[in-house]
């Protein structure tokens, strides 16, 4: 007896094609490749990405160093406080240096270190000569007695700070016109010539020493000239 074939509904246009079973090893290989790729990309991305916090820390250290230099030069801070602040800034730079990975981070750390080195020199230069030198490594014996010896040649600070010293001294001091900054002998009161701004610039150059020494040197004009010095720092006229 004839029997009709049973129909099977075909929903697709094309004839049913037997599906090939996906090869497990192929999928595993693909998965491994994808995972490795993702890991490599993530690693590369993380190593290339600049740490904004680290950059910010170096900028803070640089700002602090500038502030210290300004305070020291304007006589608004004593030696011990300035030294403590410099140490704090140096710690910040050291920490950033340890964590710096990218070129941008290393560059920022180097700039901060330069500025901190300059602050160190400025602070050390302001050290009262009546006090015993705490860091013989940083100041040569000549500096205590020979007031005309340039800072660049009298200090033995780290090699990396040489450039900073040069930069700082270019604006602030001249090896030849630097007055005696020691307190071994009280300088005579000398009123600089010129306008108030010219007088302030001489003060900024370091012609009249720091702190009490400067106050004595400028005598009655100290307040006016110092105010001008402070104003110039505030206005960013002094680099």
């Amino acid at each position, binding site marked *: *007896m*004839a029997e*009709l074939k049973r*129909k*099977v*509904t075909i929903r697709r246009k*094309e*004839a049913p094609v037997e599906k090939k079973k996906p090869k497990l090893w192929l999928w595993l290989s693909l998965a491994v490749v994808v995972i490795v790729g993702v890991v490599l990309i993530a690693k590369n991305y993380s190593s290339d990405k600049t740490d904004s916090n680290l950059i910010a820390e170096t900028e803070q250290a640089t700002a602090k160093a500038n502030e210290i230099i300004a305070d020291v030069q304007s006589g608004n801070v004593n030696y011990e406080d300035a030294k403590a602040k410099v140490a704090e800034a140096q710690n910040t730079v050291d920490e950033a240096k340890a964590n710096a990975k990218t070129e941008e981070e290393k560059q920022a750390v180097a700039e901060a270190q330069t500025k901190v080195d300059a602050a160190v020199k400025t602070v050390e230069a302001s050290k009262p000569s009546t006090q015993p030198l705490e860091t013989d490594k940083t100041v040569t014996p000549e500096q205590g007695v020979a007031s005309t010896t340039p800072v660049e040649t009298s200090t033995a600070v780290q090699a990396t700070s040489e450039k900073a010293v040069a930069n700082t001294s270019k604006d602030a001091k001249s090896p030849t016109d630097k007055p005696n900054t020691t307190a071994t002998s009280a300088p005579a009161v000398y009123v600089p010539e010129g306008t108030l701004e010219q007088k302030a610039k001489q003060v900024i150059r370091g012609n009249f020493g720091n702190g009490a020494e400067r106050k004595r040197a400028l005598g009655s004009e100290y307040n006016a000239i110092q105010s001008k010095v402070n104003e110039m720092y505030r206005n960013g006229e002094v680099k």
Partner: protein
Amino acid sequence: MDEVTLKPKVTLRRKGESAPFTFNEKLQIEMVWSTETDLDLCVFWKTKDGQEGGVFSNEYRQNNDDMGTLDKFPFIKHSGDEKAPRPGGESNEQIKVKSIDTLSELFIVVVNYEAAIDNKNVTFNEHKGRVEITTDTGDNFEVPVDDERSGHVYIVCKIENGDAGKKAINKGEVITLGQAFQQIPGFKLICN
């Protein structure tokens, strides 16, 4: 310009009634029915060199080639299986023919699939079905599928492609699967 006249629609009502026809490249066979029954329109043939074949729903053998093609032999194409129409509506299946030059005879057949599978005792006249044949030369025939005898296979009509031309003949035969297997060339393709 010659006046174009539409040929009148011819209804082959009686068994044995025939009508000649011509077509160039388009002949359409369409079955329409309105009951909730799965009827299948099929065309089976015998070629001039004696080979048998057919076009029918691809669901019998899960093979799209069974629906044929117009681009190459058999130059006949089934539109696809249509199940029962929605209530109140009509369902239809179509078969398009581009050429029958290599065929000697064709059988237009309707299978009541559900009844055949379930071996139900049914008749075709309850489905209000009909087969319409139209050609690109204006011939238009209608053959009712309304025989009252019970059976699962309805041979609606036979097309003869002889030296004298093409001719559609109302066969009006309701037969069993076994009889169809024996009598209709190519019918065995949809049988186990």
